[in-house]
């Protein structure tokens, strides 16, 4: 059975994804386009005995590959030649949307137009002659309201009809002067057997579409002069550059078309969006409202998920771990194997799962912000600040989330449109001091800076921000040089997101995280287990970890804590999760590790009941966290044995302790963050991130320590 491939093309924010969802019944799969981190959404389904594959092309304004999204779209349409193109149009904005339509029509692929947002369009008092529009464009046009599932059946029927009868859209005619050239070029291209639609190719070549010119280089060799002469003739005639001429011709055609089919209401009604923006973008209120929303998002995400994360942790490590080890010992498994499975593999799985509640809340918020249209406003408000580092206004949100946890922050970079912004932001996020780093600060400030705890902690947070700004500027001038693009962005009208849309986006993204990042995290945990436990049963300094730490410690002399190999050793388990550094320090500085032997003092069913009860309590706590006051349990330090604290105190000076905290702040993020970077951006960006988070902390700590020494601290 032949699969019918349908590509959905249209401007950003026209509801393509919602339409695909409505058609396929939410069978959307999410992935990336090959080689880039642009989200690719696909769905497969069967209908009336045929198999369909729906491909959601990235939102684009034209087919000239200016951004990576447009390149993907052009490449897909030209090389994969889908069977039908569904051009999704936001009918409330038809003029601008038709600009892309005129280009799609030239591809010679059967096409159907979905006039989406039809309800909204009607309620605004517009009238459109659909019949006439279909006739002029030679494309079946179907009014739809994707979110409400309206017009879906008809759209699908028209798609099948267009496919079966191979209905090709009409192509617009340009001015005679241009037409002549197009025709001549078409003939020349025909002779050379160019494998793309002739008229499309001729126009693209005339327009100097660099991406396409590169593609057809060998077909047009020797024709360059002739082509350049044609361009010059057109430019001389119109007194404008060729690209502008062609674009103005397209808009001219659209103007005429729209005048025939569209009746606008006599008066432009004041829209709800205008009223909301009067408040949200207000010069005085705009910023406070923005910060309040961010604060709420932060609070709900972290307070809401904390009890659930604790529960998952307890369930996996306490309940599953306990009974699994009892079972394993019962089968006569050796001690080391049980430790590997429980402390390595199982705790890795537990770590991945413990991110699920966090992910859920974060994606819920991100989706609400995105789908409602507020995200674009946030970018509008924050752009001035972010622009200083060469970033887009939207980067602000992922960076702020980084203060809570770096993992969701990396995933939140998806809100950014350009791949460059996404990668750059993700590389800077690890310098945002996440919640897990606080216990480290609490321990050391408690020991060395009792009187100025808050100020020191604040200075660390601040330093993280400053470092990220500086690194951002450097990257901007080196690695990401010349990849900048203007800020111009659409501010879509506010819309109420539907539960279905939110759920889809939460579920799809969470699943993709568990699958991809999960593997990296679990593998890292197993590797770390080997590091810390081989040879099995030996004291810390004899393990691989201890030996490595002692060997490399001289490297850290310039940072002030090179003589304490234990402090360095603690950094490595810190890769699992930063707060582990504290526990590891406690262990290494002379806490006797109690030998864990799980005894079945309670029965399995008793334990299970307890877990269910715990889950109930966790859910209640989570709700309280969301709606209750803001509690900060972040300054609590677990009570360590005094002897260990005293030893730590004797091995550090206040200056080297500060240097160590700075190092912990900037040093490699946890395995989960690395996993997230890998799953979003691949190995190259991961390597770059590791490089940055090793060299930067080293240099900064060295500078601080030596400056401090000179200044007499």
């Amino acid at each position: 059975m032949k699969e019918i491939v349908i590509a959905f093309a249209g401007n950003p924010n026209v509801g393509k994804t919602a339409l695909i969802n409505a058609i396929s019944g939410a069978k959307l799969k999410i992935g990336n386009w090959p080689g880039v981190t642009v989200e690719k959404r696909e769905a497969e389904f069967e209908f009336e005995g045929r198999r369909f594959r729906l491909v959601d092309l990235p939102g684009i304004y034209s087919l000239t590959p200016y951004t990576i999204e447009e390149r993907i779209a052009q490449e897909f349409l030209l090389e994969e030649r889908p069977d039908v193109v569904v051009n999704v149009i936001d009918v409330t904005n038809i003029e601008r949307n038709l600009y892309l339509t005129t280009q799609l029509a030239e591809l010679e692929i059967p096409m159907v137009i979905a006039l989406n947002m039809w309800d909204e369009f009607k309620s605004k008092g517009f009238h459109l002659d659909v019949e006439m529009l279909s006739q002029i464009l030679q494309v079946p046009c179907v009014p739809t309201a994707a979110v409400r599932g309206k017009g879906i059946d008809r759209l699908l029927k028209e798609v099948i009809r267009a496919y079966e009868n191979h209905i090709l859209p009409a192509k617009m005619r340009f001015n005679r002067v241009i037409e002549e050239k197009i025709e001549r070029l078409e003939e020349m291209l025909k002779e050379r057997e160019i494998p793309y639609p002739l008229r499309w190719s001729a126009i693209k070549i005339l327009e100097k579409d660099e991406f396409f010119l590169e593609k057809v280089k060998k077909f047009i060799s020797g024709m360059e002069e002739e082509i350049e002469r044609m361009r010059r003739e057109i430019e001389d005639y119109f007194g404008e550059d060729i690209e502008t001429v062609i674009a103005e011709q397209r808009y001219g055609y659209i103007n005429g078309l729209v005048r025939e089919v569209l009746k606008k209401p006599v008066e432009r009604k004041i829209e709800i969006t205008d009223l909301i923006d009067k408040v949200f973008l207000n010069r005085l209120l705009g910023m406070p409202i923005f910060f309040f929303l961010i604060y709420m998002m932060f609070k709900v995400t972290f307070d809401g998920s904390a009890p659930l994360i604790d529960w998952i942790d307890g369930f996996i490590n306490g309940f599953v771990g306990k009974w699994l080890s009892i079972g394993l010992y019962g089968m006569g498994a050796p001690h080391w194997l049980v430790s590997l499975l429980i402390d390595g593999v199982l705790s890795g799985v537990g770590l991945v799962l413990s991110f699920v509640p966090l992910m859920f809340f974060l994606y819920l918020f991100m989706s609400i912000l995105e789908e409602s249209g507020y995200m674009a406003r946030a970018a509008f408000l924050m752009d001035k600040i972010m622009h200083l580092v060469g970033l887009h206004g939207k980067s602000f949100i992922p960076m702020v989330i980084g203060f809570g946890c770096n993992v969701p922050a990396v995933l939140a970079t998806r809100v950014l449109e350009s791949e460059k912004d996404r990668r750059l932001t993700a590389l800077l996020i690890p310098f945002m001091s996440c919640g897990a780093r606080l216990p480290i600060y609490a321990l050391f400030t408690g020991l060395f800076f009792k009187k100025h705890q808050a100020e020191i902690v604040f200075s660390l947070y601040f330093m993280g921000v400053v470092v990220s700004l500086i690194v951002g500027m450097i990257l901007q001038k080196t690695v990401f040089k010349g990849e900048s693009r203007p800020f111009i962005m659409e501010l879509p009208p506010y819309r109420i997101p539907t539960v279905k849309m939110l759920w889809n986006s939460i579920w799809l993204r969470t699943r993709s995280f568990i699958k991809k990042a999960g593997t990296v995290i679990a593998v890292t945990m197993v590797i770390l287990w080997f590091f810390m436990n081989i040879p099995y049963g030996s004291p810390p300094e004899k393990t691989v970890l201890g030996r490595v730490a002692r060997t490399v410690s001289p490297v850290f002399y310039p940072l002030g804590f090179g003589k304490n190999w234990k402090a360095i050793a603690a950094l490595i388990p810190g890769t699992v999760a930063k707060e582990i550094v504290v526990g590891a320090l406690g262990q290494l500085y002379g806490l006797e590790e109690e030998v864990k032997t799980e005894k079945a003092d309670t029965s399995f069913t008793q334990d299970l009941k307890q877990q269910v009860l715990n889950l109930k309590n966790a859910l209640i706590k989570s709700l309280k966290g969301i709606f209750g006051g803001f509690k900060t349990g972040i300054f609590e330090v677990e009570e360590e044995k005094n002897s260990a604290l005293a030893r730590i105190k004797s091995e550090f000076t206040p200056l080297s302790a500060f240097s160590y905290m700075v190092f912990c702040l900037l040093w490699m993020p946890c395995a989960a963050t690395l996993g997230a970077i890998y799953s979003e951006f691949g190995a190259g960006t991961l390597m770059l991130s590791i490089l940055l988070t090793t060299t930067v902390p080293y240099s900064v700590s060295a500078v601080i320590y030596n400056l401090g020494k000179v200044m007499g601290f």
Partner: protein
Amino acid sequence: MKLSELAIGEKGRIVRIGNVGDLKRRLRELGITRGEVVEVEHVAPLGDPVEIIVKNCRLSLRKEEAEHIEVEKL
């Protein structure tokens, strides 16, 4: 005058778009072409960027970009 010089609520007709390379293409795709009427709707609290309405559509652009667009005030 330049688009960046229009105050909130003022309208202008686009006369010319300077030679700004790739930016010009993007402007065109978004409907910012010669003869089109633009209205300044908001200015961000920090003074940049600005929100304009073109072809019944809200767009946000930075002042440094708006500087390249010449308008006649209506």
